[in-house]
């Protein structure tokens, strides 16, 4: 599955984005008068366009240039936020982080460099600025809806399948610490620190420095020998 931001120029005859209706993609919301800032916050906003929120993705199409448009799947949007604090960004906007395949830490961008062409696949941030800030709330809610409509594809395998750790590392956008080899070696990954695949141990990790916990321990004593399996720190 391709992640990240993509060029989108596939407009239908009505000027709206051509959606994948065969696979059930439907338009949820259209918001005219939206500027977009891709990547670093110092980049200049691109000329007003129209935002299309479908059941699968976010599409922004330039009003002036029909060759210009971007799309990102909800699956690739890590988080989105309603930004109204002028210190965060001068204009109220929807801020979104986008998962990228590469290490996206390309944030070194001085004012002079910020207008160079972007490699879209490396864009890790996006700001959508509606000309009418009153639209922010509804946009935020529709983004939430879109995310909920697009959960991670479920892996049917249970048990000791490494799918989850692969999942963990391929979705991680940081390239420095994690390279692909780690997914081949679950013993070094998070949750496998001692190479123990015991499910219960990997579910919970408690760092205890609280006397309330001692109370719980006493209450648990003798009640059920099984708990020490679940909570090895009790034994």
């Amino acid at each position: 599955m391709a992640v990240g931001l993509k060029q989108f120029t596939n407009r239908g005859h009505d000027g709206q984005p051509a959606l994948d209706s065969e696979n059930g993609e439907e338009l949820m919301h259209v918001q005219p008068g939206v500027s977009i800032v891709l990547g670093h916050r110092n980049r200049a906003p691109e000329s007003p366009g129209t935002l299309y929120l479908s059941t699968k993705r976010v599409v922004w199409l330039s009003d002036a240039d029909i060759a210009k448009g971007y799309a990102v799947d909800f699956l690739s949007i890590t988080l989105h936020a309603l930004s109204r604090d002028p210190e965060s960004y001068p204009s109220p906007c929807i801020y979104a982080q986008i998962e990228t395949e590469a290490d996206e830490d390309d944030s070194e961008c001085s004012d002079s460099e910020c207008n160079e062409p972007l490699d879209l696949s490396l864009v890790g941030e996006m700001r959508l600025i509606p000309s009418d800030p009153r639209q922010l709330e509804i946009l935020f809610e529709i983004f939430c809806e879109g995310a909920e409509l697009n959960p991670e594809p479920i892996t049917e395998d249970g048990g000791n399948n490494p799918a989850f750790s692969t999942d963990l590392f391929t979705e991680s956008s940081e390239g420095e610490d994690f390279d692909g080899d780690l997914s081949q070696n679950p013993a070094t990954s998070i949750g496998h620190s001692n190479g123990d695949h015991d499910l219960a141990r990997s579910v919970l990790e408690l760092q205890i420095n609280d006397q309330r916990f001692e109370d719980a321990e006493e209450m648990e004593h003798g009640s059920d020998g099984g708990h020490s399996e679940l909570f090895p720190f009790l034994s």
Partner: protein
Amino acid sequence: MGLSFYIYERSKLGGVIGGGLQLFFSYFKDLVGREVTVELKNDLAIRGTLHSVDQYLNIKLENTRVVDQDKYPHMLSVRNCFIRGSVVRYVQLPPEAVDIELLHDATRREARGG
């Protein structure tokens, strides 16, 4: 430094035990209104008031702020934030919100398959 409590990433829970997700979903629902810190797999840590959580452990926070403000100055504060469940590495809970008894029981039930 009190008790810090981490719940492992949703993708692992979902992938391994399926129904285990339900356990944490129920647990998080009880934490609505509390202050939590959500650490993402890209190392960003966001603190805020838990507004809601859904079955995929997507998390909505209010009055958020980034924990490491030097590293993420542009995200100093946003009012509402929606975090995709699959990118959550840890959720750090306030110590007073951790009901050990309840978690013991629920986890034990889950491990026994019912």
